[in-house]
């Protein structure tokens, strides 16, 4: 069954869109990532114009993160104060990211920059997570207790503006989470994604937050950042396709609910390994596109050169 999308101006199969939304929603609920890094390339693949894909992808991320946050809130797995601190940093970083984005667009190399960002960041984060996850799994199997680093004192604990983050069980300065927010916001604006795949490992490894609150807290921040992005795209470029978004959302919210429940049953280490493999897969695919001789050297797009 075909449907004509009013803003994208293409006709697409309804079930393709529902399925696509479902898969991305499942991943979103399972890992606490917004799914932006998957939905945007997938929409390109089925022939949606890139500008519409990026903007509408952000709108779909809003829905799946609302759904995810609510499911996580019920499990008391959202650290709201921490989420707010990261959000403030995220909005600052995002403003800087938009500035860099415009600079690169003027230079005519934004596509390459985005692709390289994906490969470098997704690839290295994926590999780190995989290594860590495998090590943790091995430790569990051999029966030795996991070393706890959480109460170790480092320079991080000497920073001022300390605050008690109850849900995370942390008493740390607000500066590190703020900086994590800025870095994620910066990347998210350049790459056109929510940034969950950067934030989840940053919260686990840099802030030492427990995995069970990381997912909810990161979704909480992604919700606001992607809502802001959607609104900006709708106002400045008129590229949000509400019909496309609705179909992706219907598939996505169902997927996200299933994902959140599935996630509660899996062990943290298994989750980390699965997310790592997914991230490596996407990075590998994008990396291959850069290196392999393209089938068609030429590409066309509507619109003038600036």
């Amino acid at each position: 069954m075909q449907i004509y999308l009013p803003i994208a101006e293409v006709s697409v199969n309804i079930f393709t869109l529902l399925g696509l939304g479902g898969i991305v929603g499942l991943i979103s609920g399972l890992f606490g990532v917004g799914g932006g890094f998957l939905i945007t390339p997938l929409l390109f693949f089925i022939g949606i114009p890139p500008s519409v894909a990026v903007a509408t992808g952000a709108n779909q991320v809003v829905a799946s993160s609302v759904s995810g946050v609510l499911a996580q809130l019920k499990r008391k797995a959202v650290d709201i104060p921490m989420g707010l601190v990261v959000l403030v940093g995220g909005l600052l970083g995002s403003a800087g990211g938009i500035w860099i984005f415009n600079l690169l667009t003027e230079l005519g190399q934004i596509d390459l920059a985005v692709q390289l960002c994906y490969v470098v960041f997704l690839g290295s984060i994926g590999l780190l997570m995989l290594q860590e996850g495998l090590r943790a799994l091995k430790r569990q199997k051999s029966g030795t207790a996991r070393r706890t680093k959480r109460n170790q004192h480092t320079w991080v604990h000497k920073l001022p503006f300390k605050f008690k983050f109850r849900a995370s069980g942390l008493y740390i300065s607000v500066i590190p989470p703020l900086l994590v927010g800025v870095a994620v916001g910066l990347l998210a604006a350049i790459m056109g994604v929510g940034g969950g795949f950067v934030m989840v490992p940053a919260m686990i490894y840099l802030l030492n937050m427990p995995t069970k609150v990381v997912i909810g807290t990161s979704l909480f921040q992604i919700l606001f950042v992607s809502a802001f992005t959607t609104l900006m795209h709708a106002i400045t470029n008129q590229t949000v396709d509400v019909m496309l978004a609705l179909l992706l959302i219907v598939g996505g919210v169902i997927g996200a609910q299933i994902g959140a429940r599935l996630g509660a049953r899996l062990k943290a280490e298994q989750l980390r390994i699965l997310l790592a493999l997914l991230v490596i897969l996407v990075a590998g695919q994008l990396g291959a596109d850069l290196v392999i001789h393209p089938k068609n050297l030429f590409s066309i797009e509507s619109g003038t050169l600036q």
Partner: protein
Amino acid sequence: MIRALALSLALFSAALPASAQENGRTEPPGEQIVAGLSRDNIGITASFDGSQILIYGAVKREAPEPKGDQLSVIVTLEGPLGPITIRRKSREFGIWVNTSSVGVAAAPSYYAVATTGPLKEILDPKVDVQQRISIPLAMRAFSGPLQVQDTRPFTEAMVRIREQQGLYKLETGGVHLVDDTLFRADFDLPANLTEGSYKTRIFLLRGGMLVDQYQSSIEVQKVGLERWLYTLAHQQATLYGLLSLALAVFAGWAAAAIFRFVR
């Protein structure tokens, strides 16, 4: 009979002044096109997945059919013009990067040519250039300063890509001509149509030269919900953005609520 011919001649020369001679027309028209379209507008609804257009007509003669060159008919259908950018990748430091580009100021979003025979045989190249009939001539001027020496690979690639997408096509033999009088051409419009006025042109040719031409247009427009959403998105962008967000938040909440209820 003679008076009628004289009248039509007078009307014709009034409608088409001095340029008629330069257009490749060698003698006053003895043959004229009378044509019709199966529909003059196409509405894009939510379930739109392509459409068909039948362009038909007849050759009206005031005198017996001239001897000599074979009669040929070419029918073209052209979508709204828009600017496009064609990019080429090349290998830099081991990775493939867009390195050069060519801007085209105006290229049709859709262009189909149906003929009674091979274009090379029935159309004089000079007439082709004047009337911009064949596909490579459908695009207009380049835009901006040219960065490359040779633009031909770029324009050829554009035509190739659009042909693969079903947006540009040449259908040799797509016009059925019966008894050198009645003709018809069927066009299948793809689902990825752009809104706008689609121009249809019919050319009557003998020996490669133009005998008569006819022009008409078909309006392609979004209707109903599609129209409403498109207008809202462009004229009330903030409201539309907030609406999209509200929809997303509601859907997310509803899904969580429903799942809670189900459990």
